[in-house]
Each structure stands twice: as C-alpha cells, then as structure tokens.
C-alpha cells in the first residue's frame, strides 16, 4: 500500500496545520479584497473604491453574525426537494447496474479478489456520489438566478451566507444518503462476492504419521474453487487449516464422513500495524541514506541487491511482553525486481534476522520467500536461536536478549545474486491487532464523504458567480490541480532550482517542444539562450499553478480507500486530520461563496 509519509498524531498536526490554514486564508482574503478594490477603483476612483470595499467587508461580517439556523435549514430542505425533483435517485439505479456488471466482469479467481472488489466498489461509489453532488451544486444557484426565483428569496432577510450554506448542506445531505445506500449495497456485494468455501475429497488427503507409525493427522489439498485451492494441514485433534492462498485461509474441522472447510479468513481485514523506521545498508554493507533506486515503481520504495551484504533494516520500538506475550506477529510485503528471469513461478529467497540494537546480538536467520503482492506472515516465537561467536547457536528468550527497551532491529536480506528486493518503510510491521472490517469500510466511505463535501462546497462557491457549465469546469479544474498538487510542487521546485532530476522533462512549454521534437525527457537541455527563455517562461507559468497547488484540496489524498483495499485499519489520527481539512475547505469555500454572492447584482 502506498504510504508516502508517516501519519502524524492529530494533536501534533492540528496546530501547525491551523496556522498554515489561517495564513493561506488570510492571504486569499487580502488578495480578494485587493482585486475587489481594483475593479471598484476603475469605476469609482481609488478613494470611493476603498470605502465601498471596506463597507462591503463590514456588511459581510454583520451578515455572518446574523446567520439563522432556521433559514439555513429551510434553504437546505429546498435544495433537497430540488434534488429529488431532478431525479437524483436515478443514480441508485445506475449503481445497481454497475453492481450487476461488476458481478459479471470482475474475476473472483484473481490474485486478491477482496482487494479487487473493494477497490472497484469504493471507486464507483466515490465517482457516482461526487458526480451527482457536482451536477446538483453547480447548476442549482444559476438556475435559480435565471428563473429569478432567487429574487423572492433575497428580498427576505436571508444572508447570502445562508443561501450558500443551505445549498451545501442540502446537497451534502442528498450525497450522504446516496453514499449510505451505495456504501451498504456495495458492502453486501463485496462480502457476498468474495465469500466462498471449498470441499476436501478423501482421496486428496494423505495421513501423516509420527515415528511410531501412528496416524497423527493429514495433509492434502482442497478442491479447486474460484481459481485456487489451498494446502490443507490437519492436526491430531481433527482440526486444521487450509493454508494461505489468494490472501486468505480457511479453518478445517472434522465432521461426520469427512472434513468441513470454514469461511474465508483474511480476505476482508483491517490490520492494525505497529511500524518501525527503515534504513538501508548498501551492497558493501555500508549505511546508505537510500537503497538503490531501480527506477520502477514508486520512488519511495527502495531496492536491495541479492547476494550482497545489502540489507533493509527496520527498527521497531514499543515492543513489550505485555503487547505480544507469545511472540512477534511480523507481517511483510516484499516486492521483487528481477534482473534475470530465474524460475518465474518461484519466489525469490531471502532471510529475516533479528538484532539487538544495543548489544548487536543476532538471531538465526529466518528464511523467507518473497511472494509479491501479498502479505506474508512470519510469526517470531518467544524462544529464538541466536548466533554465537563460535558459529553455534543458543536458544534465548526474545524479550530478555534481543529486545532492548522495547526496541528491536529486523534485517531483511535477499539471497539470490542479481535479484533485488524492494521495500518501503510501511512494508514490514507487527500486527498489533485487527479492527473490524465493517468499521474500516465505513471509515473508507467517510473518506468519500469528505470528498463529496468538498466537491459540493466548491461547486456551490463557483456557482455564486459563474454560469452552471462554467462553474462545473472550474470545479473540475480545481479538483484536477489538487489531484496533481504533489507533482506540480515538485515540477516547480525542479524549475526553480534547476535540478533536472526532480522532474525530468521541464514545464509546459518545454514539454511541448520536447513532444514536437520527439526528444527524450531524460536528456537535459544545454543552456542555450532559447532554452533559458523557455525555462524562464515555464517558471512564470508554473508559479500560479504552484500557488494553487498549495491551497487546492486533493481528493485522492483525502480518500482512504487504499487502506481498506489493502486491508489496513485506517488510523484515527489520519481520519481526524482529514475531517479537519475538509471542514477547513468547506468553511473557506462557503465564506468565499457568501462574499461573491453578496457582491453580485442578483437581479441584473
């Protein structure tokens, strides 16, 4: 799962975030007031313009103070009634159709069907809900202005802020109901789609015996269902497991006349991870800030070379006997980058080792096989063997000898020369527990809800001064710039610093030229005068985009669907931060909308 940064604690995050928010908001307000003054100054001269703007701001603030919940609610109800009149419920039918088609074309035999279904359902829900509220919000106010029904409203003691807020509230309410219905239906669909069991035929089972020849259990395999089967191991007491395949396993129980295989476990999970910090050793065993980037996947994932001392080292802290009395439930996702094909159906072999960060004492190496795309579990028991200086081993207690003040190092090394392991900090973790999948799914829907709120507020804000279709384009533009805000920020940094490696290929004009001349983006331009002019022009073009990128919302960053699909519990801190961010945007957009509407001649 993509986790670019560590999730900060909400309490630590909110302070600086609030300061940044107020600063950006203040700056935007000052700019808006300046723009208003400029336009007024053209018509009325600088002094009168100053007076007008000043009085406008005062009147706007007085309006805010006079906001009445009853009026807001009346307008929100009206917005809901309007939505119903526009037949928004049709979208539920569309969603139903999508589910129907999804049932056909999504492959339940895929590598990780849980991931596939949840990802699809969340994406569809997100898209539909946001599209509906976008259409509702951008066309409502312009239609009201065009039909002049707004004149009967604004000649009542209605504050423009109430009109804006009422609309946001009303459409958000519609969006919320749609989201709730789609979310529930989607959940039922996912659960139904991925749940399955297998059979186990007697001829597929072989008894296992101990040294004396007595039967102590059985091994074998399940039937092939949904494109996969499991290896079955049954213990002496008649219970066992169908081992992990396709990201899940089943419990096996003896029943009359054979064995019964239970429901799939681990498909729809909400893991709670305890994560460590990651550092690397390079191929010569020296500490390196980074591993070797092989240029594929995401930049944040670093690669270590097999058959060398290169290692990825996580340092965990907070490990205690109380938290993990039986041992450490280490889980890992290890990506592979092959420089030669090898045997493609086999995983790449490597080891995991524990090390005491203080004494340097090491455990024996646990062999692992990197299976890409699925989470491997490695349970580290309380008693582990440690390496002695003479090459022998000694069994010690995990907490007594290896864990120091709750800290422990976990080393990952790849054994196969010429192959690489790719890991990121988030890829190794101790599973501290499991959240409920339903709750996690609901939290994922909450992320969609945040996005829906922002789209609504943005749409209503633009509709206060733009015609419907234009307001829609403007909203989409903001969302788009927000979506690429990280890229725009890096591109701008690359332009300004001249560090070509941050974003190769340059800004908009340079890219166009490169496309026209079919030039590779990996080759930087010589500093000819022409190149410098183009680069300077690009920087000028990018500056406002950079500014916009720093204040526009990013809906994808608000989305937490990735957590749900990857099977991780969404951290409360992240959710709280997203909630605060959403609130901030909605408040800012509502305020901007209120002032724009107030400054507008509603009847001309």
């Amino acid at each position, binding site marked *: 799962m993509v986790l670019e940064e560590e999730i900060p604690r909400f309490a630590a995050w909110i302070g600086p975030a609030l300061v940044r928010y107020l600063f950006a908001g203040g700056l935007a307000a000052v700019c808006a007031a300046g723009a208003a003054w400029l336009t007024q100054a053209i018509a009325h001269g600088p002094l009168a313009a100053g007076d007008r703007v000043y009085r406008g701001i005062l009147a706007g603030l007085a309006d805010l103070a006079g906001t009445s919940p009853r009026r807001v609610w009346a307008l929100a109800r009206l917005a809901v*009634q309007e939505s119903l009149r526009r037949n928004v419920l049709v979208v539920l039918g569309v969603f139903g159709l999508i589910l129907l088609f999804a049932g056909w074309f999504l492959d339940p035999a895929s590598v990780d069907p849980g991931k596939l279904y949840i990802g699809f359902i969340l994406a569809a829900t997100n898209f539909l809900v946001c599209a509906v509220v976008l259409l509702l919000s951008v066309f409502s106010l312009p239609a009201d202005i065009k039909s002049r029904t707004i004149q009967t409203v604004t000649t009542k*003691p209605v504050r423009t802020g109430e009109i804006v807020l009422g609309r946001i509230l009303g459409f958000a309410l519609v969006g919320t109901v749609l989201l709730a219905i789609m979310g529930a239906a989607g959940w039922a669909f996912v659960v139904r789609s991925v749940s399955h069991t297998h059979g186990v035929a007697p001829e597929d089972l072989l008894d296992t015996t101990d040294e004396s020849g007595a039967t102590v259990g059985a091994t074998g395999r399940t039937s092939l269902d949904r494109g996969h089967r499991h290896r079955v191991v049954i213990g002496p007491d008649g219970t066992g497991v169908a081992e992990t395949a396709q990201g899940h396993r089943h419990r096996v129980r003896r029943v009359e006349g054979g064995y019964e295989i239970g429901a799939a476990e681990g498909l729809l999970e909400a893991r709670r991870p305890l994560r460590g910090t990651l550092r690397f050793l390079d191929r010569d065993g020296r500490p390196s800030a980074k591993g070797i980037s092989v240029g594929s996947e995401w930049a944040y994932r670093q690669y270590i070379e097999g058959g060398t001392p290169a290692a990825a080292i996580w340092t965990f802290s907070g490990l205690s006997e109380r938290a993990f009395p039986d041992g450490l439930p280490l889980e890992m996702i290890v990506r592979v980058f092959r420089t030669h094909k090898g045997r493609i159906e086999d995983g790449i072999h490597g080891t995991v080792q524990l090390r005491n960060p203080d004494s340097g004492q090491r455990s024996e190496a646990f062999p692992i096989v990197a299976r890409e795309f699925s989470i491997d579990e490695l349970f580290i028991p309380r008693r582990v063997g440690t390496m002695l200086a003479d090459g022998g081993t000694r069994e010690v207690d995990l907490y007594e000898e290896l864990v120091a003040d709750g800290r422990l190092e976990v080393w990952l090394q790849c054994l196969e020369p010429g192959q690489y392991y790719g890991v990121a900090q988030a890829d190794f973790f101790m599973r501290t527990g499991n959240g409920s999948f339903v709750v996690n799914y609901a939290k994922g829907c909450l992320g969609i809800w945040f996005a829906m709120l922002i789209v609504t507020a943005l749409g209503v804000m633009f509709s206060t001064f733009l015609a419907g279709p234009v307001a829609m384009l403007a909203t989409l533009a903001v969302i788009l710039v927000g979506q690429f805000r990280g890229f725009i920020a890096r591109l701008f940094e690359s332009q300004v610093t001249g560090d070509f490696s941050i974003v190769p290929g340059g800004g908009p004009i340079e890219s166009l030229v490169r496309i026209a001349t079919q030039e590779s983006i990996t080759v930087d331009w010589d500093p000819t005068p022409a190149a410098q002019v183009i680069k300077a022009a690009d920087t000028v073009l990018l500056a406002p985009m950079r500014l916009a990128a720093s204040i526009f919302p990013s809906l994808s960053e608000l989305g937490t669907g990735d957590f749900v699909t990857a099977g991780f519990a969404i951290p409360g801190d992240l959710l709280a931060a997203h909630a605060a961010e959403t609130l901030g945007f909605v408040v800012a957009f509502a305020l901007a909308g209120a002032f724009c509407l107030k400054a507008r001649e509603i009847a001309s």
Partner: protein
Amino acid sequence: MNVSGPSRSGVGDGRGDVIVETRNLSKTYRDFWGRRKKVALKPLDLEIRRGEIFGLLGPNGSGKTTTLKLLLGLIFPTSGEALVFGSEATDVRKNERIGYLPEESYLYKFLDAEETLDFYGRLFDMPPDERRRRALMLIEMVGLARDRKRQLREYSKGMTRRIGVAQALINDPELVMLDEPTSGLDPIGTREMKDLIVDLKARGKTVIMCSHLLADVEDVCDRIAVLHQGELKELGRVEDLLRVGDVTQIRARGLPPAAEAEIREVLARHGGTGVEIGNPKTTLEDLFLEVVRDAEARPGRRAAASLRGGDDHSTRAG
C-alpha cells in the same frame, strides 16, 4: 369619492417619518465588459412617508421595476443612494419589515401553496405555530383555500399572483412593494387587491406600487410619480395632479332651473348654502397620456405646469 374633501391621507404634507428616501439614485445597466447597455434610471430624488400609498407610473421600460429593485437591494445603484428605513437598501436586515411582490411571481413551482408560505415564513425565522397561523390566514385571504395542496406549477396566472401576494405579506410587513399587483387578476381579484391595499394603509402600512392600470392607481394611491425613460416627469398628490386649476365647477342641489341666473348673481356677491365649488378633475388616464406626450415632445424636461393649468407647487411634493 369626496373630491373636495380634506387631504386623503392622514399623513403627508411634510409631516410623518420618511420610510424610503432616494438621493440622486441612478442606474445604468452594463454588460459583462462594463460597457453601458441602458440608462434605466436617471438621478431620482424621492421621499416616501409612513402610511402612504405611492404609485410609480410610466410606460413600459421606463424604470419602475428598476426603481423597486434598487430599493430592495437586488441591484446596486450606479450613483446616488437609496435609503430604506434609514439604512442602505443593500442591508438585508431591512427585509424583515418589507414585503415584495415581484413583477411575475417568482416562486418555486414544485412547492404547493402551504409549503411556499411555510418556506418564506422560515426565511423570516418565524416559529412553526406562527408560520402555520399566518399561512392559513393568508391563503384564506387570497382565496386559495381550496387549492392550497396543489403544486404551483398547476396554478393559473391569477392564482400564482394571489399566492405571490400572500407570500409578500407573510411577515406582516411595514412596507409593501407591489410590482403590478393587479396584473392577471380577474375583476373581483382586482377589487379585492385594491381593498387590500387600502386596508394595509388603514393599518398604518406603507405601500409602493407600480401599475399600468391607471384607474386602479387613481383609486388607491395618495401620491404618484410618473417616469419616462428613466426620468421623473411628474410627482405629486393624486388629487392635486388631477385638479384642473383654471376651471371652476359649481354643483348645487334642490334649486329650480330658473334660479340659475339669479344664483350666478348671488354667487358673485355672497356664497349660497349647499353650493359646492371646486376644480373639476380630469382622469389619471388623461394626465398620464399628456405627461408622456409632453415628455416625448420636449425630452429632458419636467412636465410643464401649463399642462395642469397652473398650481405648479403641488408637484414639488414631499
């Protein structure tokens, strides 16, 4: 109506508090690029006092609706200012005490009569009981009791107008602005509307109305202003404006026809009992046509005093 009676309104004549005041109020509509499209209102000075029924007259496109919209803050003045209840017209708080019936009733067609009044009642922050009470009362008053559960999209023009009036009165306003209140109403509706306006005045409300139906205006208005192409052409008390100053009318009852010559003689010396003497009235229609014709013949000037046979002072009313 008693033509020669005392002042028709209890207030006026420079007394009473000013509810609406415009100073040099003008409006030029501009297009998106700021180019001027239309001078809809040339600098206008008006004062309207509590308890008055004030009529705005003028041909189509003369700026009546524009004036009302300026007073309501729906559009902003190009220059000058409009004060309503002493504060600027763009201040929303004044709307608490205002009722407005737009030119056409701009209402949400998907609501029924009750929902409509309930909605606008909420916008006045009225508590539920009061909303229900006022809504029922007004629906009864405008004669829509039987149709109160029907969506407005099904309403006829006159019915829409009626619910529009009810909507304008939901807050029991002190100042009522009616843009062509009788348009679309049947004769009975028109009569009721006029009664309603007079009744509002009797309850101390102030009414500003635009209308093309001069007979209606003549019947109810205390004062009128006539606009022509955005310019004020005539302003004054209806009775003053309609008085023909250079003609004297004598009416008497119970006199034999033979006495006429004698009465003339007697009248010349001393007044007889039961004799009514005054100026006859023209109709507002005649006045209106004259003002407009005069304005077209001599643009840029206030209507000539001669039009009304002297008595010029009454036009400088207020």
